[in-house]
């Protein structure tokens, strides 16, 4: 619906704006989509460029939905999915995939948890069998839980606690920017709460969320869709469905004034700054404009914030960030902030950095962006989008989240359209509406021993 409104507004500008988009080869990803009687969503996409296949299962549960008092639990549970099932012993999932020439992993995100393997395509049924076995019959023991609590504790130490900055542009920014616990809590978890998890917690979580009617199975690669359909029926059709889990409350009250936090950092040598602005929901009419605004402000090293801070004012060493800290515009389902992270030079202050960011924003709000800048942002967006589709896993990822969150993986072939239709006026309006101080959270991370870092 929002698309037709945008098109209507666009008519006058279409010719100049579309010069580069007209060259785009039309995207034609084949998609077979259906549901088994137990509710499992199935997506199959043939691609015969290489003898490779990706099999993935996406469960509709992320760390936003984990129980209170159990921060880090969704991720701990992800680890438990490699601890064995009725016919696959502890860790043998890895053995079966690797001994069949593949690689595998799992990932816990805001709103989903995925499991995937890429392997030679003649081994596709092995992967389906493995995924079906653990969806049906996860085997959970005290000993394995304790083992993975140790492993996950080390993961938190190596990636967070023993690192400078400690992931503050995610963990601290979200903690401060959001008020609803589901959104604001630390998804990596505190060591205490990770280690407090019980076998009962694991069993309940599995029963509630890891059911076929709460999942998407995706197969992408050098396979025959009709054959895969039969294999899917054989291995998954008899996995029993469960009562659908309650929808989590992710409602977030609108932010009304700026939040500023300064934090000492025991391990860092240089100061760093992170900002987060709440962005409109994915179905809002100005979402695509916001995504291109992010591209124009910080999408690459030609972007406005990067040029101003790193090159012109020489205030900061780097500038990274995006609309969704962990992923893209499509692989989450709830409130989101656009994040920016920059390491700034000793002898400067967070205020100086913010002042320059705000000056750039003010220019966009006052004068908008140029037609050339917008056209380039669209080309860049399209190019990045194609890169996501290059690997069978990249394609499986997009198809899976579109099935999971929109019940429509066919959208993969038209996903670019709303972004290509954005006008400069809409980008300007999005900047004026969202890039205001009252909508942001700022964290200044300052080394505790600042004396050594002068010069």
């Amino acid at each position, binding site marked *: 619906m929002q698309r037709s409104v945008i098109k209507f507004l666009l008519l006058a500008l279409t010719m100049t704006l579309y010069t580069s988009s007209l*060259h785009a*080869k039309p995207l034609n990803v084949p998609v077979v989509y259906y549901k088994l009687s137990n509710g499992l969503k199935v997506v199959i996409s043939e691609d015969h*460029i*290489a*003898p*490779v296949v990706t099999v993935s299962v996406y469960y509709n549960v992320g760390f936003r939905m984990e129980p209170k008092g159990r921060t880090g639990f969704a991720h701990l549970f992800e680890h438990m999915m490699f601890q064995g099932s009725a*016919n696959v012993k*502890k*860790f043998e999932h890895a*053995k079966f995939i690797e*001994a*069949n*020439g*593949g*690689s*595998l992993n799992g990932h816990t995100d805001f709103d989903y948890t995925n499991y995937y393997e*890429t*392997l030679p395509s003649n081994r*596709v*049924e*092995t992967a389906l*069998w*493995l995924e079906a076995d653990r969806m*049906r*019959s996860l085997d959970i023991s005290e000993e394995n839980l*304790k083992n993975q*609590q*140790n*492993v996950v*504790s*080390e*993961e938190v*130490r*190596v990636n967070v606690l*023993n*690192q400078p900055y400690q992931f503050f542009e995610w963990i601290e920014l979200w903690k401060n920017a959001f008020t609803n616990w589901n959104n604001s809590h630390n998804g990596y978890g505190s060591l205490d709460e990770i280690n407090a998890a019980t076998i009962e917690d694991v069993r309940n979580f599995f029963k509630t969320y890891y059911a076929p009617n709460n999942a998407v199975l995706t197969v992408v690669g050098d396979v025959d869709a009709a054959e895969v359909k039969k294999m899917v029926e054989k*291995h998954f*059709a*008899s996995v029993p469905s469960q009562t659908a889990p309650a929808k989590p409350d992710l409602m977030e009250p609108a932010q009304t004034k700026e939040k500023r936090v300064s934090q000492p950092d*025991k391990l*860092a040598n*240089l100061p760093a700054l992170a900002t987060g602005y709440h962005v409109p929901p994915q179905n809002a009419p100005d979402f695509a404009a916001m995504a291109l605004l992010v591209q124009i402000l910080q999408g*690459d090293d*030609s972007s406005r914030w990067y040029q101003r801070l790193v*090159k012109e004012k*020489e205030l900061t*060493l780097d500038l990274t960030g995006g609309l969704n800290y962990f992923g893209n515009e499509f692989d989450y389902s709830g409130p989101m902030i656009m994040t920016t992270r920059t390491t700034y*030079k*000793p002898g400067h202050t967070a205020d100086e950095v913010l002042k320059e960011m705000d000056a750039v924003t003010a220019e966009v709000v006052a004068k908008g962006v140029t037609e050339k800048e917008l*056209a*380039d*942002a669209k*080309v*860049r967006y*399209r*190019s*990045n989008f194609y*890169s996501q589709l*290059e690997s069978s896993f990249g394609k499986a990822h997009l198809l899976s989240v579109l099935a999971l969150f929109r019940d429509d993986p066919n959208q993969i072939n038209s996903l670019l359209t709303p972004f290509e239709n954005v006008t400069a006026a809409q980008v300007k309006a999005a900047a004026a509406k969202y890039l205001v101080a009252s909508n942001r959270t700022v964290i200044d991370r300052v080394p505790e021993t600042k004396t050594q*870092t002068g010069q």
Partner: protein
Amino acid sequence: MKVLLSITLLIVSSLPVLAQQKTPPPPGPVRPLNLPKLTEKKLANGLTVVLAPLPNVPKVSAILTFRSATDATDRTTHPGIAQIAAGVANEGTDTRTSKQIKEELRSIGGSLSLFADADQTQLTATSLSEFSTRMFEVMSDVAQHPAFPESEVKLAQENTIQQIRAGRSNPGFLANERFQKAVFGNHPYGFVVPDEKSISALTRDDLKAFVTKYYIPNASHLIVVGDIDVDKTFAEIEKAFGSWKSGTVPPDENPPVPVREKRQIYFVNRPGSIQSTIYVGNVSIARSHADYFAIRTADTIYGGSFYSRLTRNIRESKGYTYAPFSSSNTQAKTGSHLAGASVRNEVTGPTLLEILYELDRMRVLPVTDEELDAAKQFSTGNFSIELASQLGLAGRINTVYTYGLSKTFIDDFRPKIEALTTADIQRAAAKYFDTYHAAIVIVGDWEKVKDQVTPFGDVTIYDSDGNVVKS
């Protein structure tokens, strides 16, 4: 009969509990590899060009590789010059400012970056395939006419110094730096980052002289993979790179790698550290060495895959660590084998014990046939997955030229891996997983873990700036 049978089938198919299959299904017939055809050509100026059509997405990826600072004089006079040159080369040419380069790349959906190690300076670019002509033009401009504007050089010097300072707060950075120095000493592979004085001393003239000497077509190769038509793309390349002047190929001088008489511990003290970051390893071989396939496969079984011995032991059985790893890093001149893990302070000693035990087990006992078969499947399967991406294939072709491998390396990969025996694996492990002469690097809190560390060998203690504190 017939009726009865169909009733039975009906019952079976409606009984969910019976559908659980106990063993993994057998593989289907092997699918054809469909490797893109490689075309090698040479420009009149000596530039080697390799093209491979891989139209998986409407994009194109290109890697242009020069030599690095292979002349020993350049390395001694200007440590780090290859890195700084690579960092500033795309910040302005004779006809384009830094900003114009970035904006041009943006408008073709492209990227362009350079990095330098001891073997090569690599210029990697991508774009939408419809804009490949413009991508080659920018690549060629950066390769031939980098201007090194004063302001850009100064900014890069300042920022590099700060980035290295930031890096010194990261345990992985410190462990890698100490390991490379311990294993390779004064060999160029022992160099990780320049000191601040060397960075500040570099001038624009130094950098210009460096690229004039090293960025030459007759000691370079260009690999192009993507949604391309070979003839049309080659014509675009000829147009963009044809006028590039050839030069004198610089010498390639390398001092020997130091010999370690016995196992030695290099401890980088990081007070307050709540984990020990442990690296254990040794010098190994060049990529072109005949043992390459054996050491690579031994490494897969040891710690180079998820279901490896090391991961099963210190992660899945003992819970000491999250991501234990090992890798066989073979380059143009020589290489190293490395195993490592980051572990909570309390299990530093026990982890070292297991890392060494698993290395020794590979040397003393043959691996099982099952382990070797799995490792072969793992290597060949993941090799074809790697070759299915544009930059994966381009990177793999690049190694053939940079490391002086056989032109049939990619085709030979599968048969050479498949021919390995358990005896080959044990022989390679015995030679290269040498715990008696191993370098052990630990980044951690010395006061907290010293009692666990000292039983394993003599210790030299460093601070995070690389100075020896105590030996």
